[in-house]
């Protein structure tokens, strides 16, 4: 939180402050590790990770696709076709690069702003949109709020909805793998706000003691709904909280996918050597908190502008251009492809059926109890009679 305005309890009374919102321009002073700067140039801090052309292009393409999904989700929500939307604009680098740093059979416990994790693992676009539309034939059978994603086949555990509650679940699962002697590693993403909950404390404490192969990524995106990160804790950084539990920790530029990749990769390797890590990825939520939010009530437009200059898509694009891997034509093609794919997925997903009322009772227990059988029969009988 160093270098950010201290709006905390007494928010600065609007306007007038030119700059000082985004610490990425002064990353070294803020202890934030970087590979590239705002222009996609190497900063010389962290070494450039050894990624080939195809991988880098895949990384960027995924970031663009995820951005395009966000734009579409927003439109669908505003037009009443999707009930609710949780934007992830600006946050593409953290979850996409970190997911790439992990193996396909490693487990991920994610939040609600991380569609790229699923897509990278092979989920079809239509599956995501079916979830957003609450349709029957998506993994959760239409039971959960849009953007609460996951899929066991992809080793991506769905979020619990309570902010931070899954942090110890991730840690416990990793501990389980260690007990079983498996080589699986675990990755979890959570926000700056989530660090205030007891679950963060429990998980970090157990991690320090039992040393499960887990990497905690705190996606510090500046805000928890209307509460600035500077009011979430008085600690100078979120990373340093790891010290209280003897858990290795560091801060990275969360809008620099190369830095995230490097940090996550190293942490993954160390995880197997009994060193769990806490990585604070410093980033920024460019969008609304959710479709029910109104950021005008709590943040300055200047802050958003300043961070927009550090948009991870722009930086990555420039980096690729510098390397000669990318150009205007590819960029235009990519957006066209994304739009087209999303169009198709939306059309297909929206046409899918809603769940049956009877299905509400499935998956409560492995074998339904008589109590639920009876309640189900009664409810279906009533619904029948009403229709």
């Amino acid at each position: 939180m160093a270098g950010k305005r201290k709006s905390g309890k007494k928010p600065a009374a609007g306007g007038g402050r030119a700059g000082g919102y985004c610490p990425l321009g002064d990353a070294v002073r803020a202890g934030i590790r970087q590979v590239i700067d705002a222009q996609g140039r190497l900063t010389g801090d962290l070494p450039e990770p050894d990624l080939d052309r195809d991988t880098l292009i895949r990384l960027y393409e995924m970031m663009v696709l995820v951005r395009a999904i966000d734009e579409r989700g927003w439109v669908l929500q505003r037009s009443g076709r999707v009930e609710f939307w949780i934007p992830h604009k600006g946050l593409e680098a953290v979850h996409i690069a970190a997911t790439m740093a992990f193996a396909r059979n490693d487990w991920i416990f994610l939040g609600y702003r991380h569609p790229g994790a699923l897509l990278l693992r092979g989920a079809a676009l239509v599956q995501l949109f079916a979830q957003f539309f609450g349709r029957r034939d998506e993994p959760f059978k239409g039971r959960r709020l849009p953007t609460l994603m996951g899929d066991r086949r992809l080793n991506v555990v769905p979020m619990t909805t309570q902010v931070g509650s899954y942090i110890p679940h991730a840690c416990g699962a990793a501990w389980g793998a260690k007990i079983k002697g498996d080589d699986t590693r675990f990755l979890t993403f959570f926000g700056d706000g989530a660090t205030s909950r007891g679950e963060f404390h429990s998980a970090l404490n157990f991690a320090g003691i039992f040393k499960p192969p887990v990497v905690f990524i705190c996606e510090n995106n500046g805000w928890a709904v209307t509460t600035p990160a500077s009011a979430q804790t008085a600690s100078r950084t979120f990373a340093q909280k790891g010290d209280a539990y003897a858990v290795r920790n560091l801060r990275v530029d969360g809008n620099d996918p190369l830095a995230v990749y490097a940090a996550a990769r190293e942490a993954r390797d160390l995880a197997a050597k009994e060193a769990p890590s806490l990585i604070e990825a410093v980033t920024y939520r460019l969008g609304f908190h959710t479709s029910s939010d109104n950021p005008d009530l709590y943040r300055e437009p200047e802050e958003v502008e300043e961070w927009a200059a550090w948009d991870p898509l722009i930086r990555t694009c420039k980096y690729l251009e510098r390397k000669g891997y990318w150009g205007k034509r590819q960029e235009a093609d990519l957006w066209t492809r994304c739009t087209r794919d999303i169009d198709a997925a939306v059309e297909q997903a929206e046409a899918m059926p809603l769940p049956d009322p009877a299905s509400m009772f499935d998956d409560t227990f492995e074998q339904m109890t008589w109590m639920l059988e009876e309640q189900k029969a009664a409810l279906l009988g009533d619904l029948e009679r009403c229709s």
Partner: protein
Amino acid sequence: MKARRLNVMEALNAGMAHELESDADVVLMGEDVGRAGGIFRTTSGLQQRFGSARVIDTPLDEKGIVAHAVGMALYGLRPIVEIQFSGFIHDAFEHIMFCATRYRWASGGQYSCPMVIRSPSYGGIKGGFWHSQSCEAYFVHQGGIKILTPATVDDAYRMMIAAIRDPDPVLLVEPVPLYRALSDEIVLDGQAAEIGRAEVVRAGQDVSVLTYGPIRHQVAKVADDLAAQTGIDVEIIDLRCLIPYDIGCILDSVTKTGRAVIVHEAPLSLGFGAELAAVIQEKAFGYLHTPVLRVAAPDVPYHFSIGDECYRPDAGRIRIAIERIMEFEH
């Protein structure tokens, strides 16, 4: 004093404002309640008016919020805490049920914890299972906390005031789906609701429907339809308070009609209807023509895409239960 037209949210806000104004010991705290006035805007303008020392934006930590409020209350303040959605109240369960409610007794009456826990509840906003919960029943067992739940503009304002002035912890189960949907004329006179009184929403002879929360309005609709279409004369009681509930009002009604249907949004098993049914069959056994029936959600989570339509009890299911109880044969 002139009547104003307010919605439920504004009435809650007015109740808080009234007490913040008249009692310097009242403070309000919770996630996002201050600068932005809460995610529903129920606390809009209060920080601006009463300052950030008394209207406090907290970290994201329900347990911490309630636990710190317990300490404030011990010291002599009257904290109001907002839980953003009742689905997030469980982390504070120990501090509500076994700290706030225990200090008076456990200290031999030396300490007390006057505090209000605002718990935005009930379904109908396409919120999925975390944002549509009716979890008031958890707080009934071992009953050390009063439980109030307004379903009208008047109750929203006056129960808020009553809750804040009460010398003990109060859970205020707020009707999220009515926040903006229901408005009414009200005189903002600072009069508190009486705790423990039910309201006879509609007098009737044939069957008593006992309910609480926003679903009371569906029950009223069903009763009107039934009266018009079938002549069944339904008496409706809005319980308003679960602890203590209004046993006199309930027994007067049930001994008169001989039939009771309980309607709530919470799941069936050990929902509040269980206690009511148990008590009614015990106290009014000789008067009952039929068993007490319950209309409730099933014991499964609130479904996102079809929950508002199929999970939450609705007019159809309420009507069926009333018809069933009227047709009951031994």
